């Protein structure tokens, strides 16, 4: 494998360019579907690109009291970790045999770094509302990480204890993990966790516009804001793919797209048919409902179901 292909994979497909362009397209789809549910027409397809372009060219304001380096670095951190995790997920979906030992853990870490970027940026801006948002984001992170890991564990155990995304995908050549009790549990758990990771209703507590304005991203403008928005857009593209890789691998591109949009639609529908939870309710949900539920899944998978 020469350097050019690596660069190609990293920067063009399935890396940076692919993620950015299709991620933004998905935000358009999200907005459009939401608008249709709300009996509106919704934005035209090129809207996210224009928004992005406009943000790139706007002034970046750094609040006086903030720590300048952290404030500007945080969006970059979020964005880069989103890109890396997205690239890895799509790369292993394409070439499952090239996966390396422990890559799931790497993906897990990079996915966690995205909200950490949000928290860092919000905390460095020294705005009490952002602070409140950061605090909520932190609590939410602690809330959903545990069920997330348990859900991952289900797939890992099913694949014979291999901590390799490629192995997991290949182990499902005959039968997807989804078609078992534990697989189903894992699927549902991941769906809720992804909702929280994306910051969508009912778990958009950290960015609750009506309570704490825009929460974590309150003080951001211009390019930094665009990077945060892009990080979220890329997550929107890569998380359903991760779910597919873990539980429901597709044989062809066509079936991948169908599965992808099915999951995407579930996420958008959930966003539009629920009110926002309170932070304590969300934590209760993750720890006392989803946590034991995913542990049940682990027990089931250990007993071979």
């Amino acid at each position: 494998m020469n350097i050019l292909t690596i660069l190609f994979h990293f920067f063009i497909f399935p890396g940076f360019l692919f993620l950015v362009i299709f991620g933004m397209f998905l935000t358009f789809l999200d907005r459009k579907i939401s608008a249709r549910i709300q009996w509106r027409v919704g934005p035209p397809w090129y809207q996210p690109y224009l928004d992005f372009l406009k943000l790139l060219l706007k002034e970046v304001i750094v609040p006086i009291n903030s720590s300048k380096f952290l404030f500007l670095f945080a969006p970059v951190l979020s964005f880069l970790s989103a890109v890396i995790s997205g690239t890895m997920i799509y790369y292993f979906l394409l070439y499952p045999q090239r996966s390396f030992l422990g890559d799931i853990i790497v993906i897990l870490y990079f996915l966690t770094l995205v909200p950490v970027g949000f928290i860092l940026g919000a905390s460095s801006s020294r705005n009490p509302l952002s602070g409140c948002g950061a605090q909520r984001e932190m609590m939410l992170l602690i809330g959903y990480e545990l069920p997330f890991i348990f859900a991952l564990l289900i797939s890992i155990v099913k694949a014979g204890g291999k901590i390799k995304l490629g192995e997991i995908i290949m182990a499902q050549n005959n039968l997807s993990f989804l078609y078992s009790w534990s697989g189903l549990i894992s699927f549902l758990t991941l769906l809720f966790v992804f909702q929280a990771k994306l910051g969508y209703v009912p778990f958009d507590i950290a960015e609750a516009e009506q309570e704490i304005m825009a929460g974590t991203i309150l003080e951001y403008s211009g390019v930094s804001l665009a990077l945060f928005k892009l990080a979220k857009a890329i997550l929107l593209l890569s998380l359903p793919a991760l779910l597919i890789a873990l539980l429901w691998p597709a044989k062809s591109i066509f079936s991948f797209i169908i599965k992808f949009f099915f999951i995407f639609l579930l996420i958008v529908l959930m966003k539009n048919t629920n009110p926002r939870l309170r932070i304590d309710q969300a934590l209760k949900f993750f720890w006392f409902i989803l946590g034991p539920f995913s542990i049940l899944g682990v027990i089931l998978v250990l007993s071979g179901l």
Partner: protein
Amino acid sequence: MSIKLKALKKSPWVFHVSAASCNNCDIEILAALTPRFDVERFGILLVGSPRHADALLVTGVINRKSLPRVLEVYNQTPKPCLVIAVGTCACDCHMFKDSYNVVGPYDKYFPVDVYIPGCPPRPEAIIAGVVKALSKL
């Protein structure tokens, strides 16, 4: 026309400032978001923070207590930003200009780009005003 202005024209994010208004302009601004008028078609979004805004929709008259806060919101908005005065109160104080607590319309304190008169202006008029403001660029 530069690409910057082109993008700005197609995606104006507005922040809504109401000093001392009677709500009606504010309601009509919100009504412009809702299914019958749906300004998201044109890429107009109402945002929660002045930092994200390209245009300020200002309503109502300014009174002594709200003046410093209005100025602060204006200063916090990244430039270039448009200021659109919605409603007769925002344009010229309407029937409140004799009051002891009113310090004047918005254009006394910062430049206003477009005036939309009416008490309240209809949502169509507000959309037309925003479009006019953009074509001024």
